[in-house]
Every structure is written in C-alpha cells, then in structure tokens.
C-alpha cells in the first residue's frame, strides 16, 4: 500500500478526512490540452453585482458500463439515460478563504491574490469538502467544507443556442455558515467543519437549508434580490435622513431593477442541545420539524423554536463504562412523518415510530444481519459499523453503507438485507493495515438515484462505484484531474486483486488511500451526479445523444 494517510496526526481520529491535500491546480483551459492556465475564480455574489461563477467545462465522454463479458451494456433506469455512459460536466474548485477575502478588497489586491494563487498552486485544508447535497429540484447543489463555508452552485439554464451547456453548475452563493468556537467550560475547540447540509423544500421564492457542525444546527435563507426601492421621501439617495423641513413634495417610491444579488442570512440557530458530535440531520416530511443526531442522542426540533428540542432517542448508558455502541446516522422516512431510522456502530438499524412513545428507546423494527462465520475476524465489528443510512425515494427500502459493502433492506424484512453489494472486497485481506492507519474508520456515504434503481458510493483512489439494482451490473469510475481530458472517453476502472495484472488495471497495492470519495450526491430526477474528491467537486452527467 502506498501513501496511506497519516493516522495519528489527525487530531480528530475517526474519519481521516484531513488528508494532506496536495496541489491545487489552476484550472485547465477549456477544450485545450491539459496544461494549467490561470483562470478567474468564481466570485461570491452577495457583495457585488454577481457574475456567473466560472467553471471549467471539460467535455469527456465516459465509456459505457461493461457487462461481465466486456461488451457495453445499457444502464436500466427510468429516467431515460440510454446507453449508460457518463460525461464529466465540470470540475469545480471552491474558492479558498484567502481568495474570498481578497474579493472584498480593491482591485489591486485582487489581482495580486489571483496571481499568487496562479503561481503558487495550493489548497488549504479548509477547502476539503465535507458534505454535498442537491436540493429537491436539483437546481441547486450545496457543498460544505472543513472551513465552515457553504458554497451553493446553480444549474446553468438550458438554452437552445447552447445545448451542450446543460448540466453545468456555477457558483450561486457562498457564505460562512459556522465559525470555529471555543467552549470555555470544557476548554475545547469546536470544529467549524460542516458535517451535513439538508435542503428544505421550496415554499416561496427563497431557498432554505440546514447546515450543521459538531454542535450547532443553523437554518439559512438564501434569497435573490433584483429590485430596489428608489425615491424615498425621508431619505436621500445615499440613505441619509433628510430634514423634514426641506421636503416640499411627496412622491411614491418605486421599485427599480438592479443587478441580481444573492444574500444568505441565518434565520435560526439551534444550539446547546448536543453533548456529543452531531453526525446527521434530517428534515421531516411535515416540513415543520427536523431531527439532529449525535453519538448517543437524537433530538427533534421545530423550525420555529430554537430554545428547546425534544429528545426522542437516548442510548447513553447510566454508566459510561457500559458504553459499547453509538449512533452513526439517522433519517426520517420520506413520507411518514412519524417514522425514522437510525444506525449504529454495531451494524444494526432501528426503525422507530414516534407515535408509540415520547422517548423512542424501544424500536419498532430492528434490522441486523447475522455475522458470516467464515468472515469473522477481530475487525468484524468495525467493518460492520454503518457509516450512512438512506431511505429510498419510495420509502420502501433503506440502504446502509458499512466499510466493505452497501446493503439494501426491505422494511418488511428485518433479519437480513435483500441485496448486498461489494464495494471493495479486495480490502478484506488488508484490514489489519487499514486498522493501523485508521482508514478502517473512514465513513463513506451512499446515495440512491431518483428512481431507486441505481445506488452509488465512494471508495479509495478517487474511485466511486455504481450498482444497478435491476441488471445487477456495476461500474467503477474515477474522479481525477489526470483523467479529465476534454473529449476523452473515461473508461471504467478495475482493480486487480491478484494474478496477472492487465494493462489498464490497478493493483490493490497501488491504491492511494489518502484519496477517498466519502461524499456524493445524485440529482433527484436526472442522471447528474456530484462527487467530492478532497477539495474538488466533480459533476458528471450521462451522455445524451
């Protein structure tokens, strides 16, 4: 194994997301040979008339999925993606903290900083993307990073003239959601890293999202302003109050168009309800409540009330010495507002009904697969620890991700999953080394496509995997700069597990364990996916003829 991530140098042991980020390349010039060229960084739009953020558009067609015989096979899904080829739409680099600051200053500083960024390619740890989420229409895509920032991308409008630009996302809004805090009582620093973002369904012209760090959840309103009132009687053009004695006529203020501005304002702050680290938030289907889950407790909030929350699950033992299990993820049912699930570090899922009792410590259903005796090892528990749980859009299934597999469960069958997919089984023989360097504790997420027919999850070496539930075919793709050539066809990747390595295969020992795809998202209705690789956001779409 080469280049495993540094283990104990991670201050937050657990998921080694603080990989030593290497070089942040300046963007590739579009449609040119892949040599770095300076590019204009996307600019935040709330402080000045917004320009569309730039993103490099790299046209690359990905090869079709392969059936076991190697011949191309169609991807079955009802959203009409046809042949099942995937194209890289764009690779987006979120602007660094430094460049954002420079945007607020005068032009000269901006030029200096731009050239600095061009000449000294670097990326800060703060840029590492820690969560990715499409909104309910897929028009917006939000990312949160380790530095506590949220960057929202908006989909390019389709136009007849530029059909090929469909599916491209550009920066829409950027704001600092969470700041580093210091807990004086415990003498602890609270990380500003955004653990999760969840969108609320759109109910008016504004967009609302929840973002959370380890301790505090915030509700943000993102709204556009394209008109401003002019012609006040009591204020002059600069906003200064006029002396009423000087007013001789009255006029009606009018709204005049202005350049579009996007503002993000924090509308609610839900704090001081979690002793342990928040790992999940989930908006309820009633759109009035949501839950936040930490290692030992789950709290239910009303959006309007910030100074209290209901505790609905508490697995903290009276005696902390007896602690053997923690909550790892939680989610509300997409349609039944009284039902939710939560997963544990022991590989179990509990489905709870809030109508049964106020404190849902007793589950309604308990999902656990019996351990396979032939695969038993010291690491059995660690690799069974569930890192993500997601309801299908239909609400009939749940999907869970543990270290080596993705499993689909039918809500009506508790004793075993109905489907199990091997993500990277070749790591089974490497568990000891992965334990040593803490990679075994990495928390991968998993996602459904809009029709629940395909599931996707990440792996190492910037690989991510898709499994078609109907055809049982799977594909491994790579999100990397080196393979993002314009108009090139990206082939599915293959890991060689032993024996003779073929030309395009990668051997297990050559995998880069510091390059991990932990966060991915799938557009709610189309075949557009977002894949976060450290500080890069890749957007892929299926090739439409």
């Amino acid at each position, binding site marked *: 194994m080469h280049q*495993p991530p540094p*283990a104990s*140098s991670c201050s*937050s042991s657990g998921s080694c997301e603080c990989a030593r980020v290497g070089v942040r390349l300046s963007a590739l010039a579009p449609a040119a040979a892949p040599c770095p060229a300076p590019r204009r960084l996307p600019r935040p739009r709330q402080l000045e008339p917004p320009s569309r953020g730039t993103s490099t558009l790299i046209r690359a067609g990905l090869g079709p999925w392969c059936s076991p015989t190697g011949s191309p096979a169609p991807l079955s899904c009802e959203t009409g993606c046809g042949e099942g080829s995937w194209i890289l739409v764009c690779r987006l680099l979120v602007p660094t903290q430094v460049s954002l600051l420079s945007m607020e200053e005068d032009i000269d500083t901006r030029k200096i900083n731009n050239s600095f960024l061009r000449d000294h390619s670097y990326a800060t740890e703060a840029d590492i993307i820690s969560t990715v989420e499409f909104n309910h229409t897929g028009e917006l895509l939000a990312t949160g990073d380790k530095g506590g920032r949220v960057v929202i991308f908006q989909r390019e409008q389709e136009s007849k003239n530029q059909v090929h630009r469909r599916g491209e996302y550009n920066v829409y809004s950027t704001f600092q959601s969470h700041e580093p805090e210091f807990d004086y009582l415990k003498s602890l620093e609270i990380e500003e890293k955004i653990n999760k973002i969840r969108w609320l369904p759109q109910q008016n012209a504004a967009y609302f999202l929840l973002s959370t760090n380890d301790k505090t959840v915030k509700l943000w309103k993102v709204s556009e302003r394209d008109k401003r009132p002019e012609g006040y009687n009591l204020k002059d053009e600069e906003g200064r109050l006029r002396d009423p004695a000087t007013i001789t006529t009255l006029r009606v203020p009018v709204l005049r168009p202005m350049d579009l501005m996007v503002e993000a304002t924090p509308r609610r702050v839900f704090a001081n309800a979690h002793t342990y680290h928040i790992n999940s938030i989930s908006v309820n289907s009633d759109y009035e409540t949501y839950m936040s889950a930490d290692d030992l407790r789950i709290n239910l909030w009303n959006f309007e009330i910030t100074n209290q929350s209901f505790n609905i699950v508490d697995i903290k033992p009276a005696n902390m010495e007896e602690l053997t299990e923690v909550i790892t993820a939680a989610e509300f049912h997409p349609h039944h507002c009284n039902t939710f699930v939560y997963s544990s570090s022991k590989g179990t899922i509990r489905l709870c009904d809030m109508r049964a009792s106020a404190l849902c410590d007793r589950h309604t259903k308990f999902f656990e697969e019996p351990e396979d005796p032939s*695969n038993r090892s010291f690491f059995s528990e660690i690799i069974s620890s569930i890192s993500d749980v997601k309801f299908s859009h239909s609400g009939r299934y749940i999907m869970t991700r543990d270290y080596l597999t993705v499993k689909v469960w039918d809500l009506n069958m508790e004793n075993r999953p109905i489907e199990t997919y091997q993500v990277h089984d070749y790591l089974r023989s490497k568990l000891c080394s992965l334990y*040593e360097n803490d990679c075994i504790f990495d928390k991968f997420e998993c996602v459904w496509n809009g029709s629940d027919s395909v599931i996707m999850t990440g792996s190492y070496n910037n690989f991510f995997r898709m499994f078609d539930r109907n055809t049982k075919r799977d594909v491994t793709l790579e999100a990397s700069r080196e393979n993002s050539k314009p108009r090139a066809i990206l082939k599915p990747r293959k890991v060689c597990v032993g024996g003779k390595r073929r030309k395009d295969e990668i051997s297990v020992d050559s995998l880069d364990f510091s390059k991990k795809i932990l966060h991915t998202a799938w557009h709610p209705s189309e075949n557009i996916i977002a894949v976060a690789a450290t500080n890069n956001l890749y957007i892929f779409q299926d090739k439409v003829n």
Partner: protein
Amino acid sequence: MMLSKGLKRKREEEEEGKEALAVDTWWLDPGHPAVAQAPPAVASSSLFDLSVLKLHHSLRQSEPDLRHLVLVVNTLRRIQASMAPTAALPPVPSPPTAPGIADNLLASSDAALSASMASLLEDLSHIEGLSQAPQPLVDEGPPGRPTGGAPPSLGALDLLGPATGCLLDDGLEGLFEDIDTSMYDSELWAPASEGHKSSPEDGPGKEEAPELDEAELDYLMDVLVGTQALERPPGPGR
C-alpha cells in the same frame, strides 16, 4: 481461529506495519506540523499492542471521537477474549460507581485529573511492557489545551480520584497491594522484541499475543475497561 483469513504471520505483519508507518510519513513535508505528531516508526507487532496504543491515543484527545473509542475498545475485548479463551470475561462491568461520575468528569476541565490519568496509563504501559516508547504518547495536544473534559472513558476514570493523582500518591505499590506480585516476575517483562516469539502453548491464534498469562491480561483488560474494583481509600467525591 479468530484471525481473519488474510491476516499474515506476525513477522510479515510487522514488516507491513513498519512499511505502512514508514510510508506514512515519507510523503509529508518535513516542515509539516503533522510529521512532528506522526506515530513513532516503531511498529508494534501484536494487534493487542496496537489496539492499546490506539486506545491511549484516543483517550488523550481533548474530545475523543466516541465512535472510534468504542470500536477500539470492543476490538480490544475481542482480542483479549481470544487470547484467554478460558477466562471468564464479565459481560457487564460490575462495580458500582458514583452515579454520574463520568458526567462530572466530563464537565470538569481538570488538568490534574487528565495528567494523572495520562500518567496512570503510561505507568501501566511501563509495567506491562507493552509499549516500547510511551513517551510519544504523552499528550499531543497543544499546551494551551489541557485534556479537560475527561473523555467518557470506559472505566479508566473509575480508578482516579477526582482532583489529584491520589492513586499515584501511593505509588504503584498501592495499585497492586493485594495482588500476587509473582505475576510480575521480571522475565515476563521482557523487552517487546522477545515478546514477538510466538508461543504455541498459548493456544490457537496466539501468534500475536505478548508473553503474559491469562490473569495478567485479565487484569490489564479490567483496568482499562473498568471491570476491576481496586481497593483503595475512597477519595473525595467518590
């Protein structure tokens, strides 16, 4: 046999472990702060040692990752259970503790408490001969951040009086006053390299066990996990 099929023999594992650790740091910029905190390039050859190291490291965090901690401790229990299959591992830790002591300790930011816990664990390491170089395990946090809010450690907290290292005032003698010291014969505390010898008589799957007998492992495990009630004068607040 508790080991996974793919687990290599001890020596190769040690090599692989060393290689992994060595590779761990080669690509880091020497000036990078992470290098200073990188684990020492002394690979512990047994899974038990590794797990204990991880546990130490986890406990030393100012705010430990609970999931990581729980998983490491559970793995340690499994390993210990496999090394001493006949030893009855109590399913539930028995000794009652002051209710909410863990919460109280969590809420406190007592540097002395954490210091005494750190040195306790360190001393245990010395005695048990598990760790060759306990020095690097000394608190890695920046000096301005005492490991206050003691982690909800699974029983190690139970051993300490709230404010002072009163346990250690007795010295280590107090720790073991009612324990048969013949368990701690010097030959058992051989340097770690000798512990690498596999002892087939220890039972199946023992290639990674250090040369400790069941009772010691039991004791060590209990100390770490808090199943052992040590007799000592009650401190304030307990």
